[in-house]
């Protein structure tokens, strides 16, 4: 270790040379070799001591010093175990929270998706629907892109909503299937563990049906049977041949793109409505050729889409394609939330550091004499600084280690609490990069809160300090630094509080939005009838009529009904509509959400009927075809007219229907998304094999769930329900991400407020203790208690006002980054800013009041003797 002058090694060599010369002379004098050596050493004195003498100035005995400083620090920290424990715990909680949140950031933003060359994967969405929302694509369009594109090596279609009943060993079970076109495994770079992947001929209708198992299904359900390939399983009572098994390392697409993680793959049969360009019910994913950028692909495909639009004006006019890298698509909704959380938790850590720095400053004041004594005994300033930093480093390392343990627990908690938001990122864990980042945080922490007392030390000289008796020197610079730290703390807390306040207001605003229906006491369950057993529309209709009748007959059931797509489920079906006397440009027809419902649907969800009537059992298609529309659609189609009695053409059945009723709006996606146009048609005339039943009852969810299962199996013993849940939990899911973000930021803000309060209290209390004599003099000279109280309160509040002003200005600049997370509240919401100001002032007053009261009780006789 070379610091100044020659390295230590050279000194050792030089001293050794000296001893050897002496030894040789001794030998010449006739001593025995061991005598000669001993005498030489004796004459030289203690060689080690010499080296230590030398070390005082230069060959820096770094490790030795470090070791000694460490032992000394441990002794110092042991001397005040309570304080040490408090500091370590504070750090542990803050560092632990940072590590836990960073593990989310790491998994979500830093780690790439678990596919080979994930940056080449792009999703291809349809654009141009009147709603402005991105849409799915048709098989035919996708096939065109695939053939014509030069920048993408492969494009495939997939859909993930089929949940067939798997029948194996006579144990029926719902499984999640993903339907993919044959190139899917090429795009995802997946090679099978057993058997083969799909071939183009697997897609041909009439070809024997085939299936590929995921590793987990193969392992859990088929006991990892190595002979599984070639065996036949029943999916929705249709035989499928197993042609392959994928390895464990083959990951599915993020679940948010499917309805759930697939357990098996089946080919997307070409005949599946795949000849119509208007049937946009698929999603598409492609892989860019090496070197091609998403922008190039976008430019190229836009041209292709334009050509498609000109060639097929009926279906494709003004329809385009939008290319989104897979990673960006997955992060779309959660990136801002995750970043906000990381900033919030870092702010809390900084506040904690400021508090600890303050604590360390107060202690360094108390330890002034010790330090001065060490300086007087010859400790260099460098050594003293090292000593102080060593203490903060030890504390940080202890806090960091404990924090990591907390983080392990925190990550589990985050995974559970944030499951809906972090659905696509099951691999949130503490890995080496989290450990590395935590190590960085530990170093940062020890520097931040070790630096404050170290800096104040540098403005103090030893002799000044020893001379100055009790009144510690350097206290002016220290208290200045303590004030600065408090101002910074308050400012940071203000920013955090404003941020979480805005999120809270948004959340409350959303909860206050009238959903248009009453979710309480409604239980839902999904049923998907297999096409093999219910090939005809009327079979499915009959099933649901019988099932609903059974459900209505259950004790305690107020009403029961079924719907194809639940409101606020985030899912929707669309259909183009036309009315007489209104010509929309092709491709820009209104495309409301469409739902098939049974007659009591509006009654079950208590959706208010605004005009006309709801459906009845007679609306079964045998008579007039009817429809019910929501208010938004009514306003769009017939502004200032009565919608009831009007005729509407719907694309899905290609028929004219008579509007018989208008109902209030509900939200199809979530309450923070815009209202959509909605069209309801009777299930009885339209059919539909996949429906969600709704039961309004006062009975407990578990209780009614059991009864619904019984009713379903009484109607058809081969059918099972899935996704049984209360309507409130379905609705809750749409605000789950908000609730999660809000919950965490609120706890961080609360922690920040608490820390700032404690910090302020500490500074004011310390100030009071330092000024005991001054207050004594004031009281002795006739100052009233109120004067003393005011003096202290003003001092505390001044700091807060300065910090608050800085914080609110910073918040004003920063909250616009929150805007994508806000709903119904501006980033500069005056109420929130004022509220935060009041809150912090209140905390400041309380935190200063306690020491202020102590100041008023000072007995001048005691105070004047106090030091």
């Amino acid at each position, binding site marked *: 270790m070379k610091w100044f002058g020659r390295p230590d090694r050279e000194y050792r060599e030089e001293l050794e040379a*000296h001893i050897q010369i002496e030894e040789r002379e001794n030998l010449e004098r006739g001593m025995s070799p061991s005598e000669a050596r001993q005498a030489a050493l004796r004459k*030289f004195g203690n060689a080690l001591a*010499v080296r230590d003498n030398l070390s005082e100035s230069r060959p820096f005995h770094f490790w030795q010093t470090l070791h000694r400083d460490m032992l000394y620090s441990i002794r110092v920290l042991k001397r005040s175990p309570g304080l040490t424990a408090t500091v370590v715990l504070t750090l542990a909680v803050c560092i632990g929270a940072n590590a836990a949140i960073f593990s989310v950031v790491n998994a979500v933003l830093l780690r790439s998706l678990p596919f080979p060359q994930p940056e080449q994967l792009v999703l291809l969405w349809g654009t141009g629907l009147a709603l402005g929302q991105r849409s799915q694509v048709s098989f035919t369009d996708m096939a065109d892109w695939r053939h014509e594109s030069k920048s993408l090596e492969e494009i495939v279609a997939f859909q993930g909503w089929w949940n067939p009943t798997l029948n194996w060993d006579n144990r029926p079970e719902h499984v999640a299937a993903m339907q993919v076109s044959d190139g899917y495994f090429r795009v995802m770079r997946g090679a099978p563990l057993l058997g083969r992947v799909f071939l183009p001929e697997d897609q041909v209708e009439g070809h024997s049906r085939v299936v590929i198992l995921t590793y987990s299904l193969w392992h859990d359900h088929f006991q990892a049977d190595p002979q599984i390939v070639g065996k036949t399983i029943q999916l929705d009572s249709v035989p499928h041949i197993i042609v392959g098994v994928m390895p464990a390392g083959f990951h599915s697409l993020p679940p948010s793109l499917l309805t759930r993680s697939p357990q098996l793959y089946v080919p997307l049969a070409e005949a599946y409505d795949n000849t119509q360009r208007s049937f946009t019910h698929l999603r598409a994913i492609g892989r860019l050729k090496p070197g091609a950028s998403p922008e190039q692909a976008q430019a190229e495909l836009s041209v292709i889409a334009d050509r498609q639009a000109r060639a097929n004006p009926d279906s494709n006019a003004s329809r385009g394609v939008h290319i989104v890298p897979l990673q960006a698509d997955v992060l779309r909704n959660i990136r801002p939330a995750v970043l906000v959380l990381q900033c919030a938790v870092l702010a809390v850590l900084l506040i904690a550091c400021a508090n600890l720095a303050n604590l360390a400053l107060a202690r360094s004041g108390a330890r002034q004499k010790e330090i001065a004594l060490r300086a007087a005994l010859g400790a260099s300033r460098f050594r003293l600084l090292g000593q102080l930093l060593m203490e903060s480093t030890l504390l940080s390392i202890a806090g960091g280690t404990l924090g990591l343990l907390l983080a392990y627990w925190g990550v589990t908690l985050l995974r559970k609490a944030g499951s809906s938001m972090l659905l696509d990122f099951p691999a949130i864990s503490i890995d080496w990069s989290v450990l590395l980042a935590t190590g960085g945080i530990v170093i940062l922490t020890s520097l931040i809160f070790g630096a404050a007392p170290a800096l104040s030390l540098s403005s103090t000289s030893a002799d000044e300090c020893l001379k100055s008796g009790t009144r510690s020197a350097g206290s002016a610079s220290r208290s200045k630094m303590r004030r600065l730290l408090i101002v910074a703390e308050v400012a940071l807390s203000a920013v955090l509080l404003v941020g979480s306040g805005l999120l809270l207001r948004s959340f409350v605003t959303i909860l206050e939005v009238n959903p248009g229906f009453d979710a309480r006491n409604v239980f839902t369950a999904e049923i998907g009838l297999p096409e093999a057993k219910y090939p005809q529309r009327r079979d499915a209709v009959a099933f649901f009529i019988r099932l609903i009748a059974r459900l209505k007959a259950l004790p305690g059931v107020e009403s029961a009904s079924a719907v194809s797509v639940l409101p606020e489920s985030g899912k929707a079906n669309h259909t183009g509509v036309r009315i007489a006397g209104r010509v929309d440009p092709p491709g820009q027809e209104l495309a409301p959400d469409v739902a098939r419902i049974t007659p009591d649907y509006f009654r079950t969800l208590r959706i208010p009927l605004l005009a006309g009537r709801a459906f009845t059992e007679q609306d079964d298609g045998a008579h007039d075809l009817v429809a019910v529309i929501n208010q938004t659609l009514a306003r769009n189609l017939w502004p200032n007219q009565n919608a009831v009695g009007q005729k509407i053409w719907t694309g899905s059945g290609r028929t004219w229907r008579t509007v018989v009723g208008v109902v209030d709006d509900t939200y199809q996606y979530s309450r923070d998304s815009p209202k959509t146009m909605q069209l309801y048609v009777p299930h009885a005339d339209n059919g539909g094999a996949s429906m969600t039943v709704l039961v309004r009852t006062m009975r407990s969810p578990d209780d009614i769930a059991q009864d619904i299962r019984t009713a379903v199996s009484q109607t058809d013993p081969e059918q099972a329900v899935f996704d049984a849940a209360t309507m409130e939990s379905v609705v809750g899911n749409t605000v789950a991400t908000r609730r999660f973000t809000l919950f965490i930021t609120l706890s961080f803000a609360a922690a920040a407020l608490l820390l700032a309060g404690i910090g302020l209290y500490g500074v004011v209390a310390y100030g009071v203790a330092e000024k005991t004599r001054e207050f004594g003099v004031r009281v002795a000279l006739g100052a009233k208690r109120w004067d003393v109280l005011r003096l202290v309160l003003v001092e505390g509040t001044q700091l807060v006002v300065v910090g608050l002003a800085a914080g609110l200005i910073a918040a004003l600049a920063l909250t616009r980054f929150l805007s994508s997370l806000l709903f119904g509240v501006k980033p500069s919401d005056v109420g929130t800013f004022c509220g935060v100001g009041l809150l912090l002032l209140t905390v400041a007053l309380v935190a200063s009041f306690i020491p202020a009261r102590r100041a008023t009780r000072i007995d001048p006789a005691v105070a004047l003797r106090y030091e």
Partner: protein
Amino acid sequence: MTHDNRLQLLPGTLEMLVLQTLVFGARHGHGIATTIERTSDDLLLIDHGSLYPALQRLERAGLISSEWGTSDNNRRARYYKLTRAGRKKLADETGKWDKIVRAVKGVLRAKPEEEHA
């Protein structure tokens, strides 16, 4: 050779002696120590251990310089030699020392003086 009749150096004189030793050419640490001992008829006791910090101080003050060399019996040793500044310093110190010695001697040999009222 007993230690009883040997003298401890006065503080601050070691440096001067080291400089003086180097007047006649470069020497290594051991050589300096033995030269001082020999030229003082073994009366001055050099604590070999304390020699090296002294050499360091001198080198840092620019009064001597050093480099590795080979000793008489082919051993690697560090050789020290006087710098120009060292020579000047030695002259100053020697002059000062002579004055002190003279003054101290004068005091020690002085006859009792009469007190003047």
